[in-house]
């Protein structure tokens, strides 16, 4: 669980000592029961036990807690690896050090694993800002000096597409129970050309956050919470000149970030566009998989850009929105009481009550990415007047990958995969999703709310908040990011062109979209069209 989310939930339910003890006692009672009485599969007692470490609301877990959890979750490893089997093996693990989590947790989780197997792990810790450049340079210059890497799925095109990773052995698939993944993390995500490479340890998607006090009878809008982008634009325009019920300042509707964010800003146009452009009849919505011709200038995308331009034209955004990047819209605007609707990752919800500058903690509600009342069918080249929902799985979350450097040394390969499987284990991941770890729930079993309740969480709150994530993850028409080489280059150049379009330097939304398409064509040609087509198809599982 992301740190902010954890703090948010604890703060939101205002957990008292009594509540916490109640939860712990319940778990303790469950743990003390005979195994057969507790749960049939034995995992249940482990799951209940680890959720007691250190106890919800009992402060942030420390290294000794991570080691305890790692030790208690070794069962699956022991089934596949004999004690001391990897003696003499040395592995190098490259990952992040964000918020003193990620690699720091992995160290703790893997320490008992090292003690049991006899392997030794060396660590490369990277700051988020250095991560992309380091990985990209290692890939491009062929200087891969790590055996295991923590990596986001958007880089799969760069790494898996070049055959730089080791294929997951079948015993690992069984150990980590991949069937338990939420739907969108199942193949083709984590796979390439039908082969599986990724041990998922996280999930990501954008969800809809809105201000409850703006909607309902007698509210400033007098409307229900918008369900479609058309309604969102209508509400945003109607709110011009009205007053925010909470702050008394001018009321605003949806907050589009109009400034780039190192490529990440493009996800936010995607939120609008996915409802128009992601037709259920095809997984492709950014490029034509046969030609890599950009779809970004088809009528669906142009409509999304036009929606933003309409709100700029109408003066519906807060002043200076042209300089608002996604960080600004979330943390300086929405949480501070400016604007009533937003799409973002889980952090916004988690910060709503814990952030000192947030004033919307009591009035924030969540949902999945709004729909559109019409969808563009790119195959037929025509609009269809049917309601279409397509949650945007922005970034897809972190995974652990084993590099091809271990091939040729069977012992080392087994050791690397065993370490990766330990980190992506079903029980261990439950703990990571329930406590501050930097990772979101990503398995069906993570959404068994009774486990959370037993651990001491307020069920109603967890259900409400995480429910929007679960609904997005499992949506049949989820818009999945293309995992092709250089995907952030496409996003980055699109941000530059959008900035020009939003500043009125292009004549229309179509012209802006055409400029993006032209820039994308250049990137495709530079990286290599044929290889991009092949890799794009592979990433879509076509």
């Amino acid at each position, binding site marked *: 669980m992301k740190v902010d989310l954890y703090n948010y939930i604890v703060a939101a339910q205002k957990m008292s000592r009594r509540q916490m003890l109640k939860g712990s006692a319940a778990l303790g009672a469950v743990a003390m029961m005979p195994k057969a009485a507790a749960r049939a599969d034995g995992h249940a007692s482990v799951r209940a036990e680890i959720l007691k470490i250190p106890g919800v609301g009992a402060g942030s877990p420390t290294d000794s807690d991570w080691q305890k959890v790692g030790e208690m979750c070794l069962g699956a490893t022991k089934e596949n690896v004999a004690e001391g089997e990897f003696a003499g093996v040395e592995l190098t693990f490259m990952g992040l050090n964000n918020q003193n989590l990620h690699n720091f947790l992995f160290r703790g989780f893997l320490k008992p694993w090292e003690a049991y197997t006899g392997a030794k792990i060396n660590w490369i810790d990277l700051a988020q800002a250095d991560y992309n*450049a380091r990985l*990209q*340079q290692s*890939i*491009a210059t062929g*200087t891969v000096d790590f055996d295991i890497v923590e990596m986001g799925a958007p880089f799969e*095109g*760069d790494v898996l*597409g*070049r055959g730089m990773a080791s294929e997951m052995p079948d015993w690992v698939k069984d150990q980590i129970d991949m069937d338990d993944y939420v739907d969108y993390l199942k193949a083709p995500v984590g796979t390439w050309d039908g082969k599986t490479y990724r041990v998922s340890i996280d999930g990501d998607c954008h969800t809809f956050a809105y201000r409850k006090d703006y909607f309902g009878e007698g509210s400033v809008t007098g409307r229900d919470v918008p369900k479609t982008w058309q309604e969102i634009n209508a509400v945003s325009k109607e709110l011009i000149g009205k007053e925010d019920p909470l702050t008394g*300042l001018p009321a605003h509707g949806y907050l589009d970030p109009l*400034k*780039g*964010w*190192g*490529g990440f800003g493009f996800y936010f146009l995607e939120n609008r566009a996915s409802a128009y452009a992601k037709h259920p009849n095809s997984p492709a919505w950014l490029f034509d998989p046969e030609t890599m011709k950009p779809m970004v200038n088809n009528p669906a995308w142009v409509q999304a850009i036009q929606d933003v331009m309409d709100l700029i034209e109408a003066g519906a955004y*807060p*002043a*200076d929105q*042209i*300089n608002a*990047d996604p960080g600004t819209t979330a943390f*300086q*605007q929405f949480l*501070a009481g*400016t604007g009533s609707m937003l799409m973002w990752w889980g952090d916004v919800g988690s910060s709503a009550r814990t952030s000192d500058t947030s004033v919307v903690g009591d009035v924030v509600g969540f949902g999945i990415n709004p729909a559109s009342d019409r969808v563009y069918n790119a195959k037929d080249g025509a609009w269809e007047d049917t309601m279409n929902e397509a949650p945007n799985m922005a970034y897809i979350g972190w995974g652990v990958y084993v590099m091809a450097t271990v091939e040729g040394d069977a012992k080392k390969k087994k050791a690397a995969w065993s370490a990766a499987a330990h980190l992506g284990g079903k029980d261990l991941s439950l703990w990571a999703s329930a406590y501050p770890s930097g990772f979101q729930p990503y398995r069906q079993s993570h959404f068994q709310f009774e486990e959370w309740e037993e651990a001491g969480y307020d069920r109603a709150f967890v259900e409400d908040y995480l429910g929007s994530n679960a609904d997005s993850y499992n949506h049949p028409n989820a818009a999945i990011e293309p995992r092709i*080489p*250089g995907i*952030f*280059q496409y996003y*980055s*150049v699109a941000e*530059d062109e959008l*900035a*020009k379009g*939003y*500043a*009125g*330097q292009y004549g229309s939304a179509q012209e802006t979209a055409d400029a993006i398409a032209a820039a994308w064509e250049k*990137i495709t040609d*530079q*990286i*290599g069209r044929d*290889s991009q087509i092949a890799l794009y198809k592979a990433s879509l599982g076509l």
Partner: protein
Amino acid sequence: MSTEGDLLHTVTADNISESRRRLGRMMVWGSAAVFFLLAAMQFLHDTGHSDIGFATWRPVLFAYLLWATALCGAQVVVNGEKGKRTLFVLPAALFVISLVVFPLLFALYVSFTNWNLASLNGPQPNGWDNMRQMWSDAFYWNALKNMVYYVLAVSVEYVIAFGLALLLNAQIRARKFFRVVFLLPLMLSPVAVSWMVGKSMMEIRFGPLARLARDLGWDSPSFFGTPEMARFMIMAMDAWTFIPFMMIMLLAGLQALPREVIEASKVDGASGWQSFKEVIFPLMLPVSVTAIVIRIIFKLKLADIIINITSGGPGGATDSVTSFIFREYRDRSNVGYGTLLAMVYLVLIVIFITLLLKAVSRFMERPA
């Protein structure tokens, strides 16, 4: 032992045998041969013309280091005492060549390649394609145009800095205190300035500067909302950071002025303005020109404030060449094209600074 030539600076006169000289020459040419052989072998291996080679270029680097060491050692072997004197300079020269000249040449090569880090093909020489792309790249020309505005702003900064320097040179109360206070912005990192001032104090809703502007009657104080305003604010923040730098140089110049000349002008009945115009300003020209040239060089590197606050927006209005190259290189991994843009910018800077120094050279010498 030689008894002719410069004996004054010779500690010992060497009598070096021909076989020793031959050994020295063998050290140099032998190690050079190993270096070139390995480099050629690795080049052929990397270009797919040969199967023999190493996984990396590291052995070639070691061969280069071996050659450099042999070259230094051979100086002593061949030239004896005289060679030792060469050793005071040669390692430094080799170091500069290794770390400046070679990377520059490599960058020149890279700038004429199609090299996107995401491409499976690696760097592919593409002739003048990058140059042609630059020629039609509206973002680059827009950034160059902005640089002209930014550089012109130095003239205003100079006037303010000169005024402040005169003020701090005068007999005012708490002069030392003000000198320190005026220097404070220079001690701040531009990144800190962009966050503290640009993103916090000027934040439209909570920023104290925005509140002040609202109190003064500006309804919607958007400091970066329009192209002109955004460009002006970037200039202002950069000026606020670096005016103290010009000021301190000018202040040092003012304090070094000969008192008797200024006093003589007063004795001759010159007013304060006349004294400034006819005596102080001309005497300050060399310092002024130096301060302006250094400031322009600083200005040509302007990027951090822009990257943090506007990312070049709105619509490219504040983009500097460096901030654009940063996006092209870092966000888009477009190594070949990004390097070409940087090389062209380097050439433009060299030409511009050379012409500038030529134009102002007659002011650089203090009048007799």
